[in-house]
């Protein structure tokens, strides 16, 4: 157990917290997506730190980072697709304006 691991984990956790804050507080779809990006970044930091300092022999850790990157990119891509469709239908991607379906 080293200081570096702790520092990295702290960074990961704080990034994740900021991401959560963003995802919960933002009204704009794209901003929410940014929050999600930050959450994932936190996870990646964790993964790399765990790999480097605890399990350097387990390359599935690195693999996982690759997967998370893919997730980031793909969610971004489809998210933008959804945003475009929404924008076309409603003229805005504000979450506050998406409350027709409820109950």
């Amino acid at each position, binding site marked *: *157990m*080293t*200081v*570096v*691991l*702790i520092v*990295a*984990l*702290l*960074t*990961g*956790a*704080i*990034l*994740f*917290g*900021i*991401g*959560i*804050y963003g995802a*919960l*507080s*933002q*009204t*704009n*779809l*794209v*901003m929410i*997506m*940014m*929050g999600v*990006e*930050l959450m994932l*970044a*936190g996870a*990646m*930091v964790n993964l*790399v*730190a765990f790999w*480097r300092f*605890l*399990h*350097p022999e387990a*390359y*599935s850790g*690195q*693999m996982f980072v*690759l*997967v998370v*990157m*893919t997730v*980031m*990119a*793909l969610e971004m*891509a*489809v998210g*933008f*697709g959804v*945003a475009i*469709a929404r924008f076309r239908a409603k003229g805005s991607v504000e979450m506050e304006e998406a409350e027709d379906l409820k109950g």
Partner: protein
Amino acid sequence: MYAQAFFVAVFGLAAIGFGVVVFRTSSMVRSALALLFSQTAVGCMFLAMQTEFLGVLQIMMMATEMSIMAIFMVMFMMDPGGLGGMDMSHQKRFSIGAGVSAAVVAIAVALLSDWGPAAEQVADAEAQTRELGMELLGRSMMIFETAGITILTAMIAATAVAIPVKNLASKDDKEASE
């Protein structure tokens, strides 16, 4: 060792700082840029932790991604320049609480767990890349392929949503008018 700790801490602070900035500007373009810096700082952390392949990949991918994001900002915001001071957030207090508690929980777990002895040395970059390749095409081949399929799906899906649909069955017109 200490050097490593220093760099990790510096880049970590940078990532956190830019992360905070993302939600503190009133311009989306600035947010996107801040996010880009944050992600780059994360990439630098990877490098500092001797994970060069992933670090480089991260920096490159994020650069692309964030530029796309910036373009979208311009598309979807009435206020691309970010001049007005409008607030784009809600339930702020709760969100801050949620973010802080999430971080606290994660930190607590990180600190309270007994992670065991740390590895002193890791393979050099070349060996790492080779090992990662072995992992990719060996045990994790199916994962890798699935990731590929997912990318394909994402492409189809993104296109499918993004391009407008015409002449759908009349039933949905009724729904639209509801």
